């Protein structure tokens, strides 16, 4: 068995993992440091090549998928409201699933047009205070004021009622199976139509128009308000990767799993009503894997190869992502039950350990090998 394979076997062993990884990594740092210093010769062209490929093959196609899903959702909402019934409701729920999938596939991309006008919060404000979305949606329904759904007004209304979480309340919460009132239908279609417009705008602004974010990535420089260098733009992608992993472990899994089976909190599982808690994790993870591996062009992993500082790093991370996705897919849903079932919980714990391990490798090896910093203080928020 090769040594890297042995390391990967260890990835699957929670107890030994952190210590083993840490010990191994420090030894590697000590012995390889002179080599890596000489080998880290990534230039702006290397970063730029990855940035352009990621925009073309990862970012834009994924936002296009989201725009199409939102348009389909809007159409399905229209059909449901024209003829409410079990069939049209099922179709609307399916369209909603596709839209949530599409969002989970871009959620890690925290910069660019999605940041403007609070779009990411308006599309998917989660997590937030307990029951706040259900409460806000309930209040809106109770008031049934048509003026609240007027387009301009709605766009500036509370983020709690604008996005996919509010739609989830309407499609799976109280009264979802009953024949909808005219106001409830108007709200459904307003949410869908508003999201369709946001998704279309995001695609447009990535590809041209006034903002042209692809150009912003393609032409870094002193006058570029977003990126002074290609390396800075790559760093934004790297932060998307790292923070994306952290969001999965810290928001989607840990609060639900708790420190032990006795401390599990199934009620905190995301998208519990449509039973998508684990699905969200898998789609998130696959998107991050795509960001690392590239999707028809080089991904972030390409930089590890090009730097030549740490030859075993790229295959190690590639395999780590594959194993982690496998673990996530192997957990029998729903998450809320898995965390309190002694047998299924093991896989959840394993997934958490693997997420920690990938982050650890990114911090201790990928970051020094590629020159993309993760600061002790810089990523902090204090």
């Amino acid at each position, binding site marked *: 068995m090769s040594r890297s394979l042995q390391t990967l076997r260890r990835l699957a062993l929670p107890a030994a993992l952190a210590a083993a990884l840490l010990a191994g990594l*420090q030894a590697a740092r000590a012995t390889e440091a002179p080599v890596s210093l000489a080998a880290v010769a990534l230039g702006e062209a290397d970063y730029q090549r990855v940035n352009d490929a990621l925009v073309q093959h990862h970012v834009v196609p994924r936002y296009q998928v989201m725009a199409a899903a939102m348009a389909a959702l809007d159409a399905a909402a229209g059909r449901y409201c024209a003829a409410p019934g079990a069939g049209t409701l099922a179709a609307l729920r399916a369209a909603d699933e596709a839209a949530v999938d599409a969002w989970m596939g871009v959620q890690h991309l925290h910069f660019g047009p999605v940041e403007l006008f609070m779009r990411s919060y308006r599309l998917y404000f989660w*997590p937030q205070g307990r029951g706040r979305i259900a409460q806000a949606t309930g209040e809106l329904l109770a008031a049934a004021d048509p003026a609240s759904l007027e387009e301009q007004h709605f766009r500036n209304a509370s983020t709690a009622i604008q996005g996919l979480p509010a739609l989830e309340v309407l499609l799976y919460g109280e009264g979802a199976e009953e024949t909808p009132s005219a106001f409830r239908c108007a709200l459904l279609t307003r949410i869908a139509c508003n999201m369709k417009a946001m998704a279309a705008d995001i695609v447009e602004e990535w590809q041209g128009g006034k903002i042209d974010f692809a150009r912003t990535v393609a032409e870094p420089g002193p006058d570029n308000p977003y990126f002074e260098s290609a390396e800075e733009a790559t760093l934004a992608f790297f932060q998307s990767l790292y923070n994306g992993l952290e969001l999965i472990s810290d928001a989607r899994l840990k609060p639900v799993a708790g420190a032990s089976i006795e401390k599990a909190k199934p009620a905190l599982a995301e998208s519990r009503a449509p039973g998508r808690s684990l699905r969200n994790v898998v789609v998130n993870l696959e998107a991050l894997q795509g960001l690392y591996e590239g999707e028809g062009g080089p991904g972030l992993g390409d930089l590890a190869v090009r730097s030549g500082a740490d030859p075993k790093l790229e295959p190690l991370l590639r395999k780590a992502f594959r194993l982690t996705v496998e673990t996530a897919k192997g957990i029998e849903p729903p998450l809320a039950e898995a965390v309190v079932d002694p047998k299924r919980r093991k896989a959840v714990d394993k997934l958490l350990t693997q997420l920690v391990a990938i982050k650890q490798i990114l911090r201790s090896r990928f970051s020094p090998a590629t020159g993309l910093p993760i600061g*002790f*203080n810089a990523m902090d928020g*204090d």
Partner: protein
Amino acid sequence: MAPFALSRRRLLGLAAGAAAAPLLSPRAARAETRSGRLYLSCCAADDGQCFTGAFTADGRLAYRVPLPERGHSLAVSPDGSRAVQFSRRPGSFAVVFDPRDGRLVETLACRDDRRFNGHGAFAPDGRLVYLSENDFVAERGVLGVYDARDGFRRVAELPSHGIGPHELRLMPDGTTLAVCNGGIQTRPDLPRIKLNIPTMEPSLAYLDRRDGRLLGKVHLPAELHLASIRHLAVRADGLVAFAMQYQGPRGDLVPLVATHAAGARAPRLFEAPEAALRALEGYVGSATLDASGEFLAVSSPRGGAIQVWEVESARPVFTAAIADGCGIAATGAAGGFLASSGVGGTFLLEAVAGRCRPVASPALEALHWDHHIVPAAA
């Protein structure tokens, strides 16, 4: 008990094994404190073990106090006999030690339904210490009041008059506390996740430390409601300098440093020049006035920059490039600052002369220095 809270037993266990490792002789450490030359800061070794480190400006490590987890800032009692190391947000412990020699005095655990936000301040007589805390159940900010003469027992609680209180300082009048309410709601089961960005309302609140009464509240203009007010420094004449962390889109150039003069209706924003704002990358990690009160240093670990502004003109005078630079403290000279890096090591800045030089010190370079540096003698 909540998943992230440390049990009291674990804290005490750690404390028992936590004889500070003296690196200067206790007598030498005491001499350094008396001459005002000892500085305190949380730090981490390569293996992740966290400490409070005490060191001199010329790079000698006096002692290290082991911590159970990562710490944030500290407060030192006015007589210089007690230092409190606060844990990092959302924290559940604080470690009290004698800053003259690093001897451990007491550890305190957070109430189960509160979390420490990483900062605190002593009353003028050193008896009470006020800690910024998150009441995550009621979703409001509070200051926990602890009695140093009674084993640092929690004896009262004051409202912070906002959400997410972070750094606080005592005003020169001795009764007013200035508190940065960052405006961001968090909860311990989602430790680093911001729950209310779209609706956040940061503020700088002045309150009476005796009864918690609100004495005044400063807001930023509405278009800056995403600028979380986090850190502050107070001048002898009551001028408050404060610094922000912007939660809005990357690329927005917004002021991140401001001052508020006692009684003024609005803060004075340090708005220009663009290049200076850009260097901060939307994020200031700490703010400190120099010994003269004429210069304000702010750090941006994200931008890898420590910036010194002249308070009077609201213009930047010097920027030092320090990778992951965050901790700053005033040295004795006008425009003089000591700075630390999360990568490792410390630096001496002379803003007037426009100089920054690393302090040659293998001991300090081997440690990753956290957000804040506090002088060991208040």
